[in-house]
Structures are given as C-alpha cells and as structure tokens.
C-alpha cells in the first residue's frame, strides 16, 4: 500500500540540504534580529538635544516646538511675527491643536539676508494601538524673518538691526489661521 504522502508526489532527494537551507535562513533571521538589538544598544542619540544662540533661527524654531510640545500656546505664539501671532494665537492655545510628537530633528537651514528657512523632520505620535502608539515622520518647513528692534545693533544672526527671528509663515501643526490675509 502506498503511504498517504505518496498522493502528493515525490519528495525531493536532497531533503537534508534543504533542511539545512531552512535552518541557515532561520539562523540568518535570528542574526538579523540580534544585529537590530545590538544597533539598539549603540544607537542612543548620544549627542542629546542641540543648543543654539538664542537669537538664531534654529533656537526660535526650537523654542516654538518646545512650547507646542508642552501645550504652551501663548509661548508658541510669541515666536511668530506679530501679524501671524494675532491670527494664529487662538488656534495655538486651543487644546486640540496640541499634537503629540516624540521628536523633532533639524535637517537643514538656509539663511538669506531677510529670510531663513529651517527644515525639520517631526515624528508625530498618534493613537493608542495595542502595541504602543503609531508614529509618522513629516518633513516640515519653517520660514522666518528677522525681528526688527529699533535700538538693537547688528547681532550674531547676521541681519542688520535684528533682534532674533520670528516665524513668518503659518507653521506646523497649523494649516491656516483665521483672518490671515492670503492664508
């Protein structure tokens, strides 16, 4: 009588080497997992959070993001130009515009005489999935202009007569602000 397996057809003669291949594959995957864990041990963001001169565009964006992160809408609005702050203050201070984000990484800064563009990768955290919150990284751009101070001399920002920088275009996480001309 033919065994039941024979119904399916012939079994490969090189079963042993195939089994070895399967084990090699399994070992390779285990190795991959171990490498990932080893990387986890060494990749620890050793440099920590960066610090910049207080009147630089980077510091302005950093203060803004810190304030948004902590839910301090009024402090966040203080980093915007006066016109933008008036238009956006209500949105920034509304509770549902406090996003949860885990990380903001500065990727690029472009400076011109009257404008600075700061690009930041922001990792947003949302939802409460069974295996922890989901994350999504968005690339955002902050456009800043020098904040004029009548008595201030030339400062380290490089903009003559400027006293630091202010965000001049509607910033993340807002899309528009009520009453803003051209928004």
């Amino acid at each position: 009588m033919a065994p039941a397996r024979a119904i399916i057809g012939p079994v490969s003669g090189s079963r042993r080497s195939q089994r070895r291949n399967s084990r090699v594959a399994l070992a390779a995957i285990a190795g991959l997992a171990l490498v990932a864990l080893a990387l986890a041990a060494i990749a620890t963001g050793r440099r920590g959070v960066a610090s910049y001169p207080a009147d630089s565009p980077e510091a302005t964006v950093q203060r803004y993001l810190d304030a948004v992160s902590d839910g301090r809408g009024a402090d966040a609005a203080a980093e915007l130009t006066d016109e933008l702050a008036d238009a956006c203050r209500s949105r920034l201070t509304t509770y549902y515009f406090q996003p949860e984000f885990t990380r903001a990484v500065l990727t690029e800064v472009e400076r011109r005489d009257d404008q600075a563009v700061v690009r930041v990768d922001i990792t947003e955290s949302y939802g409460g999935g069974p295996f922890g919150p989901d994350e999504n990284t968005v690339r955002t751009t902050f456009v800043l202009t020098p904040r004029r101070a009548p008595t201030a001399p030339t400062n380290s920002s490089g903009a003559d007569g400027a006293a630091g920088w202010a965000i001049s275009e509607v910033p993340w996480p807002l899309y528009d602000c009520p009453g803003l001309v051209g928004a």
Partner: protein
Amino acid sequence: MISAFLNFALLAAIVFGIAKAIGALRRTDTGFEPDEPTDVREAVARLFRLGLLAATLVLTAEGIAGLVGEAIPRSGTLSRDPAELARALAFTVVGVPAALGLAAWTRRKLAPADADADAELRSGGWGLYLFATLTVSLLVALAAWHSVAAWAVAADDLDGDAVGRALSWTALWALHWPLARRRSAALGVPAGRAEPYLLAGSAIGLVSLALGTGLAAARALDGVYEDRYFDVLVSGTGVRDRVAEQAVLAALGGATWVWYWVRHARNDGPNPRWHAYVLLLGVLGGLATAVVGGARLAHAVGLWIFGRPDASTAAAHFSSVPGAAVTLVVGAALWWYHRSVLDLHPASERTEADRIYDYLAAAVGLVTATVGVIVAFVALIEALAGPESAVDRSPLANTVVLAATLVLVGAPVWTVFWFGVQRRTARASEAARVAELGSISRRVHLLALFGVAAVAALVALVVLLIGVFEDIAEGRAGTETVFRVRVAAGIVAGTGVVAAYHAVVFREDRAALPAARPALARPEVLVIATGAPALARELASNNDLRVRAWEVADRAPAVGAGLDLDGVAVALRDGPPLRLVVVERADGSYDVIAIRS
C-alpha cells in the same frame, strides 16, 4: 502601521470566524465532511453554550484585570475613577460564577462517561470556540505583555490594567491550549499538523516579530543617522526607549512564532492550509515588503540624480534611506526563509494557493506599473501642453522619476508572475491546462482587473468629456483644455489598455475550455469501509477533495489495509471522472468505482 495591521487582522479574523461558523455545523477541521447525521438542535445549543462561555470568560478576564490594575499604584495619576473599580467588581461578580458554571457544563459534556462526548469533542462548534479563544487571548495577552515590558525597559508609564490583563488573558490561553491539543488527538490529527489555530498564532507571531525587528532596526539606524548628520531640536522620547519598545515587540513576537510555528506547525506537509500560509503570508508578504523597500530606495536615488529634490543636502534627502533599507532587508529575510521552508515540502501539483500567489503578485505588479504609466502620460501632457502660468506643480523631472520608479518596480513583477503562469499553462498537459484556465483564482483575477479597470476608464472618460465639452461650449478649446483633462486622459489610456487586454485573455480562456467544464467542480469521493472516517480524513487532508465516509457496520476494523491511495489520487488527477466510490470488500480489499458524471 501597527494599528493598520491590527485592524486588518481583526477584519480578517471576523471574516474567517464567519466562514468557520457557517461550516462549523457539519465540518471538522480537516477537509473531511463527516456523513453522520447532524443534530441541528444539538449543534445550535452547543454554539449558544460555547458562545456564552466565551463571553463570560471575557467578562471574567477583564474583571480580574481591572481588580489587579486597581491594586497596582499608577504613575502620573493623582486620583482613580471609582467607576473603574465598580466595573471591575461587577464583571468579576457576574463573570466568575457564570464562567465556572458553563465550564463545568462543558466539561461534563466532554467527560468520557457522557455518551455524546466524542461528538462534542469532534464538533466544529468546539473547534471554532477553541480557535477563537486561543487566538483572541493570544492577541490580548501579547498586547498587554508588550505594555508591561515597555514599562520595564523603556520610559513608559506602568499601566496596572495591562499587568492584570497580561495575567488573566495568559491564564485563559494556557487553560485552552491543552484542550485544543486534546481535540486534535481525538480527531486523529497527526502530530505536527498545522491546524488553523496554530497557523493563526504563527501569523500573529511572525508579523509581530517582523514589525518589531524592522521598527527597532529602523529607529536605531535613524538615531545613528541623526547623530551623524542632524541636530535634535526636541526629544520627547529618547532613541533608546523608542527602540526598546519595538525590541520588546520583536521578542514577544519571536517567542510566539517559535512556539507556534517552529515547534508545532513548521514540519507539516504540503497540505493546502499549510501551503497557503507559507506561500501567501510568508513568501508573498515578504516579496511585497521587499519590493516596497526597494522602490523607496530607487525613488530616493533617482530623485537625487535626475529630479529636483526638496532638500538641498544629500544628508537631508537620503534621511529616509535607513527605514527603506530595513524594509527591504526584513522583506527579503521573510521571503528567503519561507521559500526555503517551501522547498522542504515540494508539491508535485499546482494548488489553488500557488495560483492565488501568482495572480496576486501579478496584480500588484500590474497596478503599480499602470499607475506609473498614467503618471508618465500626465507628465508628457504637462511637458507638451502645460501653460507657463501653472503653479504649485511638482517639477516635471520629479514626476518622471516617480513614473519611472513605479514602472521599473511594477513591470518586472507583473512580467515574471503573469507570463510565468502563461508559459507554464501553455506547456502543461491538457488536464493541467484546463484546471488552470478554469480555476477560480484565474477567473477572479481576470474579471476583477477587467472590471475595476473598465469602471475607472469609463468614469475618467466622463470627466474628460465634461472638461472638453465645457471648453468647447465656452469657446476656449485648445492646449489649455488638453492640460486641464490630462489626469483623466492618463487614466483612460492606462486603465483602458488593462481592461482590453484582460477582456481578450478572458475570452481566450473561455474558448480554450471544454464546453462542459467538470474540472471546475471539486472532486468527490465516497468511502464505504470499516474505519471509513480515518481513511476519509487521510484522503481529504492532503488533497482538495470532498470526501464522505460511510462506516461499514459489523466487521472487524482494518484501517487502510489494501487501499491504493496513490491510485485514487491518480484517478482523480488525470481528469474525469470526478466522482469515485471506494468500497471495502468482505476480504478487506477495496473496489474503486468511477461514477459517470
């Protein structure tokens, strides 16, 4: 990404549960349908009792979890909601006695002294209950252990409810595991057979392992990349904690996968269920993951060389490369491992799972390539007819790079899988060719692609004509009109070709099939013998057959002796007849009788 997967898994579980419930009244978990008369009243009563038991067990587990949670101090919580304690108490007070009572009732039904114990143990309702309880308790326990472990290794707050849930749902799982093994033994399922609850656990473990490993590695590499090239402005959660969270998921998933798959299900033979799991989840899932990772890498490189990237520095532009590379490696590892497992149990015949694999991969490749062609078509019109005043458009070079990436990724996948099937079918024997052309997978593939593409083409054609007629009526038809309807025109061109091609193939298939297509039916075997159920189960477990068993009374059992199972399979494989009757003679040998259709 994780919640999306879990939503999908939940939906799949619901669909699977409904399908199982429909078949549960009659079917055991092999392909064999027992021909014993089914007492519908008893089956409905059983489902009701077991459904109630499952519900009270959930109440009990959640109630106990809530009580444990109340006993554990919570970080960052000033006061507790008394309603939570009240709810936990109510769940426990109602759930525990009800669950104990129903469990005792079910235990009595399963006790050897009960006349119907064997029927209870073999019933589809009991199998469905065990499948659902084991799978749900595994999922909930894994999520709860993840939360507890994330508190231990990362900076997460301790969730007392999670501790309670981890304990109560793990206990629920541990209580049901031996019951499932006992049922398998009673059904005569060989050790190592990949039963549905084993494959469900294997899938949960595999996906958790792959996601956890991939996300841990991606976050770790992102951390290294950021340290090397960028500055961190704000860090709510440190890299180490974010990696640890996912490493915990990988460890839990790995343990689950090793227990379910490596220890219990891996060494099963090529039965359809095992084959479908390895092929569709492991091989196809791995391939799709690797292709997505490769496509992201190719797009980043192409955009940098030929396009106009947003970022001005290479470091900023290629910041997505670590994640894409990890996706590629994880997908390739999944694909490689499951291919090697498949090689251990080569099937001589092409199964429905093989077909689903080929047609799904071909469809994914074709859709990707078609989107690429549409994007390229739109880019071409923009280049030829785009007015200077058009603003807020992606640079043309970027659109071309996107189109090229989609085509370069999708076209090879479609070509390999689709023309592989076509070539194999053309060279196959008549019976195999008829089986392929008449298979449900191929017909669904052709009709779905034709239907979706045709509807998309028609809708786009309507949009295109509205734009054209509008401009004609207003007397402004010209290159501006062509530009305005460029997307609709691209969709009409791309999907129209796809719809036409698949309509032609469908017609060719129909013409090539015999007028009467008995091969579309599922072959049937009726076994009349002593020990018929065991024989029937053996036949059904390795072949896509519908097997009925009629037990011969008043004869000493001689299970399987003298029956040429190979001959039965050959008779079915080589075309009609599609109905066989296997009858045991008085001397213990067998007659195999073909039935005229």
